């Protein structure tokens, strides 16, 4: 019995670009497994975004275009409208999707673009060294919220999946986490569902993945997963928020 297999969609010369313990590695792996299982490699055009997520093309052996910061879903809209028969997905961070790219993201969902967006929410700007982002939790200390996030100076974190689920064009929206094996399995099912609605032509598919950033959180990977459970999940509640397949 085969117990381990490297996904076929991974590049032979794959470079591991993430920090030790970062959940990006798990998320990319899940995307790769789902692409394999649905047999999508040869029909896919991927859209990379700016942030740690940009290095997705160092992992996945797919036709890929890298979008400017925040514009992934606009670029993806152009790709999909030009090539409606291709499978098109974006891989973005929460800063890309919900701060600088909020307009592009929400309008793609509102138009019901037949696209899938995977959004990694780690409550910080990881690539630039851990600044406050749109999902930074109240009280969270970052390099640009040295006294912790307060409403007076910073306002409030965005609950991305809830907003996406409200859009009429959204076919599937779910929030998942990667803190336990059980939740990793649920995350993979959510990714598969978000891919499935695109393949069925039903509209916008979205998965928000609660993820760790041990480097910028200054925590061990284990402690970081405890933070996901104890601090993130009570605010960003996991679950399927919309699935028009019933």
């Amino acid at each position, binding site marked *: 019995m085969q117990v381990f297999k490297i996904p076929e969609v991974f*590049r032979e010369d794959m470079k591991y670009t993430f920090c030790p313990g970062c959940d990006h590695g798990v998320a990319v792996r899940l995307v790769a497994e789902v692409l394999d299982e649905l047999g999508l*490699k*040869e*029909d*896919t*055009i991927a*859209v*990379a975004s*700016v942030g740690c997520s*940009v290095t997705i*093309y160092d992992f*996945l*052996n*797919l*036709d*890929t*275009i*890298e*979008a*400017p910061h925040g*514009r992934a879903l*606009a*670029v*993806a*809209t*152009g*790709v*999909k*409208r*030009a*090539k409606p028969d*291709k499978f098109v997905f974006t891989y973005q961070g929460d800063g890309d999707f919900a701060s600088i790219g909020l*307009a*592009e993201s929400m*309008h793609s969902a509102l*138009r019901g673009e037949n696209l899938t967006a995977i959004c990694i929410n780690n409550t910080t700007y990881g690539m630039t060294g851990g600044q406050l982002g749109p999902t930074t939790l109240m009280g969270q200390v970052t390099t640009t919220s040295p006294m912790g996030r307060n409403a007076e100076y910073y306002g409030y974190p965005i609950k991305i999946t809830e907003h996406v689920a409200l859009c009429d064009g959204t076919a599937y929206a779910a929030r998942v986490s990667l803190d336990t094996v059980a939740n990793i399995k649920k995350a993979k099912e959510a990714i598969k569902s978000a891919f499935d609605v695109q393949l069925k032509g039903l509209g916008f598919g979205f998965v928000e993945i609660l993820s760790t950033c041990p480097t910028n959180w200054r925590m061990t990977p284990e402690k970081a997963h405890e933070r996901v459970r104890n601090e993130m999940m009570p605010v960003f509640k996991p679950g399927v928020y919309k699935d028009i397949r019933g």
Partner: protein
Amino acid sequence: MELVTDKKILTKGNYAIANAAVMAGCECYFGYPITPQSEIGEFMSGKMQELKRAYVSAESELAAINMVIGACSTGKKAMTSSSSCAVALMQEGLSYAASDELPVVLVSVMRGGPGLGNIYPSQGDYFQATKGGGDGDYKLIVLAPSTVQECADLTYKAFYLAHKYKNPTVLLADGMLGQMMEPVVFKDYPYPKVDNSSWALDGANNRDGRIIRSYAPSAHNQCEFLQKLHQKYKLIEENETEWEEIGTDDADVILVSFGSTARNAKIAAKMCREKGLKVGVLRPITLFPFPSKRLSELSKQGKKFISVEVNMGQMINDVKLAVKDDVKLINKPVGIPPAPVEIVKQIEEYYASF
């Protein structure tokens, strides 16, 4: 509005551009409204849907240019159209498209600036188009029509050059050309098909995935890339520089003028000839590549140059660089181009100063 394919009609520059884009085989249009070019998006919204081609009313110009980038990455002919303060929002996308070497076509119908400015004609975005507002060392191919017929013809050419050189290309018109009506004939798209099978994204079928990217973490690689990119720009300068000359052979003074303003410059030159003043006109049709070499040749023959523009003097800088001499400016800051009689008056003053 019907698509016109085979007869002479009287129409606005904006409709001529849109009609020509459809005739050129534009498969995807993405845009956001702005005066004085909104007729282009209006025409495209209906026509593209009738023809089962792609059309999106984008949520912003940022989104529109990035949708064009996405569509172009698949090798399709795709475009957007906009104006001045909204083209400003597209500068990021144009820089990425130049780095990605994508055949983006942008129709830029200039209005008054800076800021929100006004909806009068202007040539205040010569710098924006030819020098760029995006980051890094890049060039856009820039074509400047002077008539409604040229609005159509250069739209064809914009698609061809964009794809031939894999370089973002701007059709730089202005509010006057966009809104005025003239007779125009739409011929068949005259250019050959460009093969993009070696780079377009189509799914990694029996090959490795292709990556279209501008992120370049290695300084060494980026040095090599920029050298290569600028070799391409040099090739474009050698092959594609286009201009029109009238009466330059025996001229003492040459008016350099582009776009709608060049029409009045031509009339002014004719009026000067009637007064016995040997005045010629050089009209750049491509603003990048700029006809610097030809201007330099004419300068070496001892001719003097006057730049006629509707802005505070932008193209004049490129004329000065080419002729290595003082160049006089005849301009109007914004609006309908200076009347031929005003231009003649200033040319006479210029003659009198010698």
